[in-house]
């Protein structure tokens, strides 16, 4: 009875559509990234084709990561988790389908716009200016659809995940409006750069992070079949994140002409975030305590906890690299690129892989075609990601010290090439992992087997 109710609550078709869109975007962005990495090895296959210029392909890589891969997957997770937690369906399935198709059109327009040379000079917001209003409207419709169950929920006190979602929905709309409109039209120069910095960080910290953690607070207890260890730590984790995270943005432009008090403030709040993160990590590992055997048997949980370890590493790294002394060397280098990859893919990408692995059999109503292939997917991706991270961090240190030592610029390029080669190799490894996964998804969906219990 309970099961049937839950099944009616969730729009399974919509979840499936968003998951598929997310995977398609992910494969496309991996191809774009691989293509771009070849430029650094003098092997770019299309050097004279304007529409495939490496600089433009790079923007396709990053924008599809944020708005194609992460956003679609998070929406799928939200469409699954929010109605189940609130026991109220989304506002309208029709609106859901409209937003789904509208969003894919927006993504296509973004990719075409970027390749055709209509990019906007806002990092992570290169979406062409004429696409921006549609993104805002799409995001607002998305939020209305998903926030309705939370408003209509009969419980007066919300579960942890819903705190993150509620705040994250508001932050998404505000962040996008702020970052794409203020530096572009209203706030010139250095103050505009401060806002652009806030945008870079808020997109990760105030949209991707709350959605990711909210889904972890749902999926981990559900799969482990036990509650989160400490409610108090959950409260600290959420409220401290909500306060400290928005203050971090200016740390993307340290030692720049932005007034120093803003830079100092950003550094201090970034270090504070590390303390917050530790409470959340402690909470989740304490929840796992006594059940760590499931990491061998459950691939979704393995993804989740690997992602959490990566999260701890990135945040620890962040609290160190943000110090002004360390910035002297590592800013502008591949160190930061490694850091960004570990955050966006090593953490949130891994969590998405986790709940994708968990949800797919339920969405298509069949058991996994092959658990072994899922294991291969996990190991190839994890080793590839780890390799890419350590390689780029090491390369970044070398670049930074060569620059400081006034070595000719060409030396820093020549010294980086081995690192860039390893980076491309690690990327190929990740890509092979995903190809295996996509095959497994496909084989599962088309398998002629009776339905499993959702």
């Amino acid at each position, binding site marked *: 009875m309970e099961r049937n109710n839950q099944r009616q609550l969730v729009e399974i078709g919509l979840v499936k559509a968003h998951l598929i869109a997310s995977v398609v975007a992910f494969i496309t962005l991996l191809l774009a990234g691989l293509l771009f990495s070849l430029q650094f090895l003098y092997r770019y296959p299309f050097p004279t084709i304007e529409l495939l210029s490496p600089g433009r392909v790079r923007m396709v890589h990053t924008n599809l990561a944020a708005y194609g891969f992460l956003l679609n997957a998070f929406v799928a997770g939200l469409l699954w988790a929010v109605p189940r937690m609130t026991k109220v369906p989304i506002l309208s399935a029709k609106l859901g389908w409209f937003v789904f198709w509208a969003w894919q059109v927006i993504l296509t327009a973004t990719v075409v716009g970027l390749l055709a040379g209509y990019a906007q000079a806002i990092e992570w917001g290169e979406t062409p200016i004429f696409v921006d209003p549609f993104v805002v409207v799409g995001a607002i419709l998305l939020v209305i659809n998903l926030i309705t169950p939370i408003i209509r929920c009969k419980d007066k006190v919300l579960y942890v995940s819903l705190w993150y979602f509620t705040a994250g929905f508001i932050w998404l709309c505000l962040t996008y409006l*702020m970052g794409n409109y203020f530096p572009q039209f209203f706030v010139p120069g250095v103050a505009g750069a401060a806002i652009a910095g806030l945008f870079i960080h808020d997109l990760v910290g105030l949209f991707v992070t709350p959605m990711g953690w909210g889904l972890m607070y749902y999926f981990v207890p559900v799969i482990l079949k036990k509650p989160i260890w400490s409610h108090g730590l959950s409260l600290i984790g959420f409220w401290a994140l909500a306060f400290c995270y928005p203050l971090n943005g200016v740390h993307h432009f340290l030692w720049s002409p932005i007034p120093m008090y803003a830079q100092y403030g950003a550094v201090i709040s970034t270090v504070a975030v590390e303390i917050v993160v530790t409470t959340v990590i402690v909470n989740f590992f304490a929840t796992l305590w006594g059940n760590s055997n499931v990491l061998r048997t459950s691939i979704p949980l393995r993804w989740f906890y690997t992602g959490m370890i990566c999260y701890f590493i990135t945040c620890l790294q962040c609290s160190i690299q943000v110090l002004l002394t360390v910035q002297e060397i590592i800013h502008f280098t591949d160190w930061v690129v490694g850091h960004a990859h570990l955050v966006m893919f090593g953490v949130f990408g891994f969590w998405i892989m986790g709940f994708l692995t968990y949800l797919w059999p339920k969405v298509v109503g069949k058991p996994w075609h092959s658990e072994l292939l899922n294991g291969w997917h996990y190991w190839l991706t994890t080793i590839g990601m780890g390799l890419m991270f350590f390689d780029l961090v090491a390369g970044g240190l070398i670049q930074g010290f060569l620059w400081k030592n006034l070595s000719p610029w060409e030396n820093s390029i020549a010294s980086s090439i081995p690192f860039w080669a390893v980076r491309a190799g690690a990327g190929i490894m990740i890509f092979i992992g995903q190809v295996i996964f996509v095959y497994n998804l496909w084989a599962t969906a088309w398998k002629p087997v009776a339905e499993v219990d959702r």
Partner: protein
Amino acid sequence: MKVTERFSFILLVAGLGFFAFSIAVMAFLPWLNLKDIPMRSVEDLAKNVPIEFYDLSSRYPEQFKRYFGDVNSASYAKVLRLGRDTYVAEACWHCHSQYVRPISNEDIRFGDVSIPDEYQNELQLPPLFGTRRVGPDLTREGGKRPNDWHVAHFYNPREVVPTSVMPRYPWFFDSSEKPNERGLAIIAYVQWLGKSREGLTAPEKMIYPGCSACSIFGEKYKEVHIHEKEKK
């Protein structure tokens, strides 16, 4: 503490309140500090037409005439706008930053440390600070190298700097391999960088003893060529 777990409290305090606080401290206060710096339009910036722009028009008179007409402030403003748009469209700013930090010997390598005044203009809307340097910083690039160097470099960077990983931009050139509208514009834009501020100290230049090209070009264009003694 149950109130901290209620929808309306989370929405108002975390969602709106903390976000507004961060904007107030991290964006509004810096804006208050900097708002008195006069904002300059492209026309203001284009009042003084630099020698590089005259040079560009004399090297490619036919193309220049066709796309931009005569050399004056109006055509220079038009070129700067188009050059900046091209710089953004090609995402140059993902690999070239536009601010010199007061650390890591950057003032020696690139030139004077950046100050807020030079960013208060229309060409920095949105600002092109950048967050990665695959190639060098371009804040002080204007006038460092001659137009010829940029023409060759945009056509194929590795002809000029053999180890360069910069992409080629053959679509900046017409069928006669001379720079087209965008090509002229991006070169003029790059040659403009650093000219939004007056009184900059010229970076120290070195003349390589015994190099005839050095003696012809003088100090100004020392980075243009490979010194003769280094040639194999």
